[in-house]
C-alpha cells in the first residue's frame, strides 16, 4: 500500500444539450409514473399513493444528479438517465432451474425471490419460520401488516433530497418485507433475492424496495441479494430501510451479482435503536455502473454499528460507495472497513462520512478504506469526511491505495510458487480479513469463487 490518494479529478460542466436531454429523461419517467400510478393507486393505501405522488413531484424538481453535485462528482448517471425508463416486465422468462440454483445460497432458513422487482411465490421457500417472523412481499404485507408498514415504510429513506430514492418511492409497488418480533432469534439466514431478467429491446428498470423491522432482543442474519439472470443490460434502483430494535443483533449482507452490463444503484437506511448491534457487509461482485449509499443513524446509546464492504471491479466498471454513519447519541461504536480490488480500466469511489453530534460523547469510530489496483489504468477516488461536534470521542480514519507488493510477490516465487499462484495468494490475502468477517459460509464461498475469477480476467 504505497500512498494515500487524495480526492482528485475535474469537474466538467454539463453542456446544455445534455441538460436538455436530461429534462426529457425526467419527463419520460414522469410520464411512465402516470401510467403506473393509474394502474396501482387503487390497490394501495391512500397514504402510500400520496407518498408516491409526492416523491415523483420531488423527483421532477430534483432531476437526475449531475457531476457538479459534490456527492456525484465522480459518478455520472448520464447513461442511466438517457437509456432507461421502461418498467421491467413481470414475466419470469429466463428464470431457469440453473439460474435459480446458481443464485440460491446454501443453509438459508427462508428464501423470498423477486423477479424484476415483483414477488415470485412459486420460486420462494417461506415455510418453517419461527412464530411471528415474517418474510414476505411488501405488497402482501401492506394488507396483512398495514400498521407496521405505515409506521416504517418511507420513514427513513430520503426521498426529499435523493433523486433515485424519490424515483424508487414513486414506483413503490412491491419488494421484500422482513419482520422479527421481540425476543425472537432466527437461526439460519433469511435470503431476499432480486433477480433481473432484462429485456431484449430496452434497458428495463426495476425499483426493488426492502423493509426490515426487528424487535427488541431479536436476532437474525439477513441477506439481500441482487443478481442478473443473464448478461443483458438493465437498471436496478433499490432502496432498503432497516430498523434495528433495542438490543437487537442484526447481521446484514448485501450481495450484488448483477450482470456485467447492469446499472445498480442502491441505498440502505439504517435506524438503530438503543443497545443494538448492527453489522452490514456490502459485497459488490457485478454491475457496470454501481452506486451504494449507506446511511446509518445511531439513535440510542450503546449501539455498535459495522459497515464493511468488499468490491471487485474490472473492465470499464465503476463502483461508488458512499457511506454515512451518524452518531447522534453517546457511547456508540462504529467500525468500517471497505476494500476494493480493481483491474482493467475500472474506477471506484469511496466516500466515508462520520458525523459525531454534540450529544454523542464517548463515540468510538474507526474507518479504513483500502484499494488494490491490479492495472495501471484502474483508478480510485477516496475521501473521508469527519464532522465532529463532540469533544470526548475517538475517531480514526485511514486510506491506502496500492498495487500488489512486488517484494512479497518475489518472496513467494522464490519459494517455488508460480507467478499466477503467488498473485492469487496476495489478492486473496488482501480480501481475506473481510471474507473472514462474513459469518455466512455460503457467502464466503461466493466471495472465494469470485476472487478466483479475478486473475484470469485481469490477465486476459
Amino acid at each position, binding site marked *: 500500500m504505497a500512498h494515500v490518494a487524495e480526492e482528485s479529478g475535474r469537474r466538467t460542466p454539463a453542456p446544455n444539450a445534455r441538460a436538455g436531454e436530461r429534462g426529457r429523461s425526467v419527463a419520460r419517467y414522469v410520464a411512465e409514473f402516470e401510467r403506473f400510478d393509474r394502474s396501482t393507486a387503487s390497490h394501495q393505501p391512500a397514504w402510500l399513493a400520496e407518498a408516491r405522488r409526492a416523491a415523483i413531484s420531488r423527483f421532477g424538481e430534483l432531476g437526475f444528479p449531475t457531476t457538479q453535485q459534490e456527492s456525484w462528482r465522480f459518478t455520472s448517471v448520464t447513461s442511466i438517465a438517457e437509456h432507461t425508463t421502461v418498467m421491467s416486465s413481470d414475466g419470469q422468462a429466463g428464470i431457469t432451474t440453473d439460474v435459480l440454483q446458481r443464485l440460491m445460497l446454501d443453509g438459508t432458513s427462508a428464501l423470498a425471490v423477486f423477479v424484476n422487482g415483483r414477488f415470485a411465490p412459486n420460486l420462494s421457500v417461506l415455510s418453517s419460520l419461527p412464530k411471528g417472523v415474517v418474510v414476505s412481499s411488501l405488497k402482501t404485507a401492506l394488507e396483512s401488516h398495514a400498521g407496521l408498514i405505515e409506521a416504517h415504510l418511507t420513514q427513513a429513506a430520503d426521498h426529499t433530497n435523493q433523486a433515485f430514492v424519490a424515483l424508487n418511492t414513486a414506483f413503490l409497488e412491491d419488494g421484500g418485507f422482513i419482520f422479527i418480533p421481540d425476543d425472537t432469534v432466527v437461526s439460519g439466514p433469511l435470503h431476499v433475492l432480486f433477480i433481473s431478467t432484462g429485456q431484449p429491446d430496452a434497458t428495463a428498470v426495476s425499483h426493488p424496495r426492502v423493509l426490515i423491522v426487528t424487535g427488541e432482543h431479536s436476532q437474525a442474519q439477513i441477506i439481500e441479494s441482487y443478481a442478473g439472470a443473464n448478461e443483458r443490460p438493465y437498471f436496478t434502483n433499490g432502496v432498503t430501510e432497516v430498523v434495528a430494535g433495542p438490543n437487537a443483533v442484526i447481521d446484514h449482507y448485501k450481495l450484488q451479482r448483477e450482470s456485467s452490463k447492469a446499472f445498480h444503484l442502491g441505498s440502505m437506511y439504517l435506524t438503530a435503536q438503543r443497545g443494538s448491534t448492527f453489522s452490514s457487509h456490502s459485497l459488490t461482485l457485478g454491475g457496470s455502473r454501481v452506486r451504494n449509499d449507506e446511511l446509518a443513524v445511531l439513535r440510542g446509546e450503546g449501539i455498535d454499528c459495522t459497515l464493511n464492504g468488499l468490491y471487485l471491479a474490472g473492465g470499464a466498471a465503476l463502483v461508488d460507495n458512499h457511506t454515512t454513519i451518524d452518531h447522534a447519541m453517546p457511547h456508540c461504536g462504529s467500525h468500517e472497513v471497505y476494500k476494493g480490488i480493481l483491474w482493467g480500466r475500472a474506477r471506484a469511489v469511496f466516500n466515508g462520512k462520520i458525523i459525531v453530534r454534540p450529544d454523542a460523547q464517548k463515540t468510538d469510530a474507526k474507518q479504513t478504506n483500502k484499494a488494490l489496483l491490479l492495472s495501471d489504468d484502474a483508478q480510485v477516488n477516496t475521501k473521508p469526511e469527519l464532522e465532529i461536534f463532540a469533544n470526548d470521542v475517538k475517531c480514526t480514519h485511514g486510506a491506502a491505495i496500492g498495487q500488489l507488493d512486488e517484494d*512479497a510477490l*518475489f518472496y513467494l516465487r522464490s*519459494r517455488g510458487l508460480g507467478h499466477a499462484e503467488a498473485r492469487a495468494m496476495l489478492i486473496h490475502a488482501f480480501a481475506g480479513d473481510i471474507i473472514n468477517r462474513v459469518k455466512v459460509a455460503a457467502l464466503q464461498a461466493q466471495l472465494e469463487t469470485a476472487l478466483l475469477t479475478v486473475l484470469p480476467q485481469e490477465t486476459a
Partner: protein
Amino acid sequence: MLEIKNLQVRSGGKDILRGIDLTVKKGEVHAIMGPNGSGKSTLARVLAGHPDYEVVAGEVLYEGKPLLGIDPEERAREGVFMAFQYPVEIPGVNNAYFLKAALNAVRKHKGLPEVDAMEFMTLVRERAKMLELDASLLSRPVNEGFSGGEKKRNEIFQMAVLEPRLAILDETDSGLDIDALRIVAAGVNVMRAPDRAFVVITHYQRLLTYIVPDFVHVLQNGRIAQSGDKELALHLEEKGYGWLEKEPAAVNR
C-alpha cells in the same frame, strides 16, 4: 553445481558486480565476505532471480544449465534457495499454508506426490523444533509481527522444509543474538550434505566459527578480491577490510 563466469550486473544505472568468477561444488560451503556495498546481496539476489537487476555480461550455470533468465519459481523448484537478508512480511498469507503450497510446488516439479496436511504438519513440527521456532508462528501471517530473530529462523526453517540443493544465505546472521546465531548455525550444519552446497554471505567472521566454510571469498567493488580457506576470514577479522586495499588482488579460485 554452480559456476559463475565473469558475471557483470547493473541496477539503477550503477555497475554493482564487475565480473564475478566463482565455482561451487556439491557438498561445499563457500563464505562470501565483504564490506557494505561490495555487491554481496546483489549476487545473492541475482542468483535467486530478483527482477530488479540487469545482467550485462557473463553467465551462471547451475547443474550445468544456464540459470539466468529462468523464473525465480523455476529456480526454487530446481533446488535453489535464498534466505533473505530482509524477509518480507506478507499480511493475510498464513505461514503454514504458504509453506505447504511451496513444498508441494517443489515436489510436483520433482515428480513426487503432494504431501497431505498430516504429513506436512509432522514434517513442519519436527523442523520447527530443530530451529526452536515457536510453533504458533506457523499459524501467523508470513513474517508479520515476527521479531528480527524469528524472521531469520523462519528463513532457515523454510530451507529445512524445502530441502534445496543450493542454499544461499544472505546475511542470515545480521541482527541475531548469540543464542539465535547458534540455533541458526546448527540448523544449517544439520543440512550439510554431500549433494548440497551453501553460499554463506556475511559481513562478519563470527558466523563462520559456527558454520565452518570450505572456502572464503572477499568481495570488494563488485569483484572477488581474494579467495582462501577459513583462515582468510580470521585474517580479515583481525585486519579489517581496509587491509585489502593495500594488498595486490589475489588470483581468483
